[in-house]
């Protein structure tokens, strides 16, 4: 572990190349998602932001639940209901060995949602109402949430930037922020691609994860920059070399911290509730990318040719 060392000076261009590649890939995802998808947004917004109705409920089966195709269920729903708003935009999945039904529809009133459940009960029942999870979000609230999330992101990015620029001199602050935006753009881009390829949606917790990643990534960069400043004070002769030594000195710390933060997140991904799954995934990705950018990318900005 102690013998691990990076040659930053030599690999500077490779690091820049790699980061540019990731950023471009993310931007392509964001642009593709904005223009070439049904939802025409930089990222696939979930029901938190556009409103809708989500229902998850378990079936009660004696032994194993029999296989039934979602299309057939929707077909049968038509005989019970003529609510076109529901039937034309319904997304129905049956997961977990055919035992878990999850349904997404556009916004419904509570009455309509209850009707839908009782109709599903007639087709797939009996259902275990004790395990029900139903969420109805009105379109108005969705817009408000989106605005709120965007504001909190901007405000806290501004606050963090302010803190960094007071704490460091201009050059360091600029590079720390560059590394931060690099991380956020890439995580955002990954989720744009996930939306395009796997129809994964982002909800308000995604915005929370971006904010947490921001705090985390800046923290990592600050630790390394601190070390660089400290070492440069003692030894200012060989500038590039001192930076490289500082990075290698902080490497263990950043690496260990990432691992100790990733471990609980991985247990959340594996054991945690489904509503925290994508949240934990985006946090984990953010921490991986954040560690990379603070160990390799941010110090590379400082290296002189």
């Amino acid at each position: 572990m102690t013998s691990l060392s990076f040659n930053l000076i030599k690999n500077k261009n490779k690091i820049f190349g790699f980061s540019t590649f990731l950023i471009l890939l993310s931007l392509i995802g964001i642009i593709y998602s904005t223009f070439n998808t049904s939802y025409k947004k930089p990222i696939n917004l979930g029901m938190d932001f556009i409103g809708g109705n989500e229902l998850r409920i378990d079936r009660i089966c004696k032994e194993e639940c029999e296989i039934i195709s979602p299309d057939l269920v929707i077909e049968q729903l038509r005989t019970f209901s003529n609510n076109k708003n529901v039937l034309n935009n319904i997304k129905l999945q049956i997961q977990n060995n055919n035992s878990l039904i999850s349904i997404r529809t556009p916004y419904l009133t509570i009455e309509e949602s209850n009707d839908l459940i009782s109709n599903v009960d007639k087709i797939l029942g009996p259902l275990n109402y004790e395990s029900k999870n139903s969420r109805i979000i009105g379109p108005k609230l969705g817009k408000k949430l989106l605005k709120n999330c965007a504001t909190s992101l901007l405000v806290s990015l501004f606050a963090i930037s302010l803190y960094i620029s007071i704490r460091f001199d201009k050059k360091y602050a600029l590079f720390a922020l560059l590394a931060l935006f690099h991380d956020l753009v890439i995580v955002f881009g990954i989720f744009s691609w996930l939306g395009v390829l796997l129809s994964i949606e982002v909800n308000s917790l995604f915005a929370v994860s971006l904010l947490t990643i921001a705090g985390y990534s800046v923290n990592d960069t600050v630790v390394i920059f601190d070390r660089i400043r400290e070492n440069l004070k003692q030894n200012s002769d060989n500038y590039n070399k001192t930076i490289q030594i500082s990075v290698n000195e902080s490497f263990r710390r950043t690496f260990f911290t990432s691992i100790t933060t990733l471990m609980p997140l991985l247990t959340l991904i594996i054991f945690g509730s489904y509503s925290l799954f994508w949240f934990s995934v985006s946090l984990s990705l953010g921490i991986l990318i954040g560690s990379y950018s603070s160990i390799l990318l941010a110090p590379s900005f400082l290296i002189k040719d």
Partner: protein
Amino acid sequence: MKRRQGWLFFIIFLLTFSIYLLINFPLQLGLDLKGGSQLTLQLVKEDGKVTKEELEAVNAVLDKRVNNLGVAESNLQTLGRNQLILELPGEQNPLSASRILGKTALLEFRTQKESTSSQLKNLQLQRLKINDLVELFKISDKRSEETSLLLIDNLTEIENDLNYSSNIEQLFERLVETKKYINNEIANLFNKTDLSGKDLINAGRRQEQTNNNWEVSLSFSNDGGEKFAEITKSIAGTNKLLSIVLDGESISEASVGSQFINTGITGGAATISGNFSAENARELEVQLKGGSLPLPIEIVETNTIGPLLGSKNIVKSLYAAICGLIFVGIFMIFNYRILGFVSVISLIFYGFFNLALYSLIPVTLTLPGIAGLILSIGMAVDANVLIFERIREELINGNTLIRSIDSGFQRANSSIIDGHITTFVSCFVLFLLGTNFVKGFAATLGIGVVISLFTSLNCSKTILRFLTTYQSLRQKNLYLSRSTTL
């Protein structure tokens, strides 16, 4: 050394106090952990600018209604400038709550305008017809084409008679809308009086003796009783009717007999019999008891979680938290040996202090809250890693153990504080701007960050100092992992 001993006692005291708190004031679990319904209500105002007073007034009315709902431990609080959050633990079907809360429930008493009898009779007839259609709709659970067509034909006929058309596709919604239109029209045939729901002191409900319908009884205040007598006196013995109007819809029209021509109906009580079902009567009773809403509200979010799912969520989160702690503990002990052991102990303290603060403040624990707690474990360990790395470097550089420990803590200080401040800034913003869901995460992560400053800078140091008072624990190799060569 003396000073550190003081800290040791202080930490032990804090730990005992935390355990005492946790035993006596158990943690409050959010609905996603214990099951129930949560409704988000938004005040509707055209210019969108809801004043604080208006929000308070709506809160007060809803609070009364909620109390009359009879759901144990229900909780209503304001959120932001124009929203309220209602939590109904254990409630699995928020339909009736939503109906009771969503209505403005503005009750008015109106007297009939001159020469409107024939218009009124026609409208009342149409209302009877539409009520029959609604009944038919409800009875025919699985509707055939035939019944649907029959319903649509009859409804269209009524609409044509009324010169009214709605562009609603859903049959039931259309029925409801047309009925509402009729009731509106009826209410328009009446003049407003100065008697309203404000003059009520109580409301009740009872079953009518003759049939299965329910009626709602009203008790007026002294002032209201006088107004009621005055109004009934003015129309007694005439062919004018008295209409009871709720939110602009006439729900009942009644004549006042000629025996009241001299005094009006006195006694300060009245009943509304408008074909109420038991449930409808209860809803109206609760609404009238609470008074009318100063501003209309809209239900913008409904979240229902079954109790089984809630307990599953607890188990899953516990698994995740404990496994996370164990993995981190093993990793730390493997890499830092005694130091790692110290960090594990201070992490356990950290956990207790966090939970104790949740019960002290109190913080309601939700799923995102648990995520915040689990993530904050990572951040707390981060501080330890920073310190231990410094100690390790000092040791490798040949410093004595005690000296290395001291300067390790000292030199890691600024980085730790920086990191905690940036995270805290994010949490603060999230807490101010976030939704209820997000607030839970921000609260636990934010509290975690503050406590972690104390445990990592102070607890770890105190425990370490305590351990190093034992000669046998002062060997340097107990502080470095095997791979490190001195």
